[in-house]
């Protein structure tokens, strides 16, 4: 019987075996060293020269030296007086510093004004009625009986009088000696929902009309400037008369602040710039290097550094510092899309949820964190305008083909 040739073992020559082993080993080494296993490659492939690992640019971040902390209220909405975190706020919309070092807060959804003492004790100073519902109501009188409707921007005079924009009531009001009174604005027809619609009319303060005023600023001579948000105009109240200064370029004035030179700074989120309005002049936009706020909502002068402004960007959940030459992201992170959060710590880690008001006391900023229902404090580092040094401990996480948008080091 002849043996089946197919079943017979064939001997491989040692040379062939060695060659096959070398080829397999070489292929494995090639794949391993080139990182081809399970790694995405950027467009361009190996032939285009751009075949590095696919990287996402690191989002611009605030300054690590800026320390963010929560000083009043804590996430849960509510209406409760108390010390710091024990107090409850419900949508703090605006904040202003008083000469005595205290802070006044427009607690919008509670329809009340709150005061934060220097020791962070929170008390209610004006407003009454049910919180957290629409509509609010309008009533002048003793502060604990007055009715407000979504109070917003505040300004505190040297004598402690608090002026505020009562946005839902379309009026400018003040709190003085425990009594709330109306400075400007009058009743307007109500809509089908029972809310006043607001309007637009210049003239004597008692007959003038506003529509959702969002901020006020008080001049040295007692002139009140109003950001008339719903009408998209800047309004001026002087000697009991309301006028509308010509301010071409303004689209949606939302935040106001006066600087030491008498120039009015206007935060305009729709045009995405901070306008400077010098007396008798037209609005102008400063030319600054660095990373500017995209949708500025409110601003204040930095008490410890004349000529420096703190600006909050509500939509992008960030806080900026500006001077005549530079604009810098102080606290917050700017991912490709707006992202909210709640995190204390360094400015490069901090997270906010619709920061819409800011005030300054010394070298600290106090920010209304609207959706987090709290007030955050930020210490401003001395050298904020200088580019941060490139640290050995925080290497860039990849190779960069160009400048990042807002890369402070690259600026």
């Amino acid at each position, binding site marked *: 019987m002849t043996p089946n040739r197919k079943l017979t073992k064939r001997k491989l020559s040692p040379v062939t075996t060695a060659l096959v082993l070398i080829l397999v080993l070489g292929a494995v080494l090639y794949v391993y060293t080139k990182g081809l296993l399970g790694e995405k490659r950027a467009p361009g492939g190996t032939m285009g020269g751009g075949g590095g690992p696919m990287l996402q640019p690191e989002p611009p971040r605030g300054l690590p030296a800026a320390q963010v902390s929560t000083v009043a209220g804590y*996430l*849960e*909405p*509510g209406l409760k007086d108390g010390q710091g975190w024990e107090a409850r706020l419900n*949508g703090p*919309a*605006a904040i202003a510093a008083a000469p005595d070092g205290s802070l006044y807060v427009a607690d*919008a*959804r509670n329809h009340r004004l709150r005061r934060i003492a220097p020791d962070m004790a929170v008390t209610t100073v004006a407003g009454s009625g*049910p919180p*957290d*519902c*629409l*509509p*609010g109501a309008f009533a002048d009188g003793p502060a604990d009986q007055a009715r407000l*409707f*979504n109070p*917003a921007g505040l300004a505190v005079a040297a004598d402690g009088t608090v002026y505020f924009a009562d*946005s*839902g009531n379309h009026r400018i009001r003040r709190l003085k000696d425990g009594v709330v009174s109306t400075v400007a604005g009058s009743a307007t027809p109500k809509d089908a*929902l*029972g*809310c006043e619609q607001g309007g637009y009319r210049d003239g004597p303060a008692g007959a003038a009309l506003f529509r*959702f005023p*969002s901020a006020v600023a008080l001049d040295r001579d007692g002139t009140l400037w109003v950001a008339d*948000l*719903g009408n998209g105009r800047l309004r001026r109240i002087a000697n009991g008369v309301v006028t509308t200064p010509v301010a071409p370029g303004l689209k*949606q004035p*939302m935040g106001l602040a006066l600087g030491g030179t008498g120039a009015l700074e206007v935060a305009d*989120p*729709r045009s995405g710039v901070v306008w400077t309005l010098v007396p008798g002049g037209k609005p102008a936009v400063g030319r600054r290097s660095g990373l500017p706020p995209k*949708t500025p*909502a409110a601003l204040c002068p930095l008490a410890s550094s004349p000529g420096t402004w703190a600006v909050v960007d*509500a*939509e992008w959940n960030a806080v900026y510092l500006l001077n005549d030459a530079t604009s810098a992201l102080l606290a917050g992170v700017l991912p490709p899309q707006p992202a*909210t*959060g*709640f995190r204390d710590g360094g400015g490069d880690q901090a997270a906010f*949820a*619709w920061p*819409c*008001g800011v005030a300054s006391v010394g070298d600290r900023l106090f920010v*209304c964190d*609207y*959706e*987090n229902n709290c007030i955050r404090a930020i210490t401003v580092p001395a050298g904020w305008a200088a580019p941060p040094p490139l640290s050995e401990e925080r290497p860039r996480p990849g190779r960069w083909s160009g400048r990042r948008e807002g890369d402070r080091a690259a600026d």
Partner: protein
Amino acid sequence: MLPRTIVLLLVALVALVSAAYVRGGLPYAMHRASGRTVALGSDARGVFWLEGDANADAPGQSAWVLERGRRPARCVLTQAGLTAVAGAGDSLVVLRREGFSGKLLRVPRGGGAAVTLAEGLSHPVGLAAGDGEAYWTETQPRLVPGARHLPATQARVSLRAARLDGSGEPRTVAWLRGGTQEFEGEILEAAQGRVYLVEVTGRDCGAGWSRTLSVPAAGGVVETAALERGTQTALLHGDRLCWTAASLDAGDPAMARSLNVGGRLPAPDTGPLTDWLPSAGRLCEAGGRTYYASADGLWRLPEQRDLPRLVVARPLAGESVAGYGGAVYTVGGGGVLLRWPCTPAARLLAGIRIR
């Protein structure tokens, strides 16, 4: 000594009862939908739901009822754009959306022509009926863009009411917090002169908040019965209000829920009833007990502070659940309406096919 025949009969009876009990624990298909079940609810009269096509975002196209002793299920209304249904005595009330607008319809459970109770509604969402009225929410669009911190400029949500007999004009019961494009949450119940609802706000700015609200049906001050972080659900059961909350105990509160219990009217929170419930699920009441249907099964919740008990260890569609009689109804794969007997009596009767 009992006669041997009687003993054998007893043994056979016990075996039959045991078999029936075991068999009754299995789900029973009550109805097979032609498409997708959009809403599933129940009241003292039976179970009702809407059916639409298989598209996940499509509204319902027909309203169905299933009542005790009256099988099979009956289609009582066929119209496009149905989004919500609620029981109202001898009738069902149904919300029909037409783009951002909509109308409220009443249709007899036994079938018949639909009556329009209200129309021209703006972004109508949510529906409940009780005390001779139907309740739903409407949202008016925002007035000024980009001014979230001025709530008066934002979208306004109102709780609205209309008489079930069609008399009078629809009225506004209360204003809710709003701010969102449309109401997010659910209207739980309208009874004893109050309307209970869960309003979810701030979800576009983090986890958001769920507040369980109690509103006088005649209008008045909105009272907050419970306020919890995240999207939660609630249930009124007798004089108790049960609501879910982020877990107090789990390592990751986003993955588990606790269940709190308090008085029906705004009352001090009596504290957590149980913990470690799966994060996504809905509460329902069946046979006098409270259940929690989630992706990993059906949990029976304790009457006193204790651990929940898993009574059905099968995946359930957590978003569509209703309790009626001694059973919980869910929607299974292929649009099948499943009945899960939960009480021993219901299991036994189901086992011998008495439903």
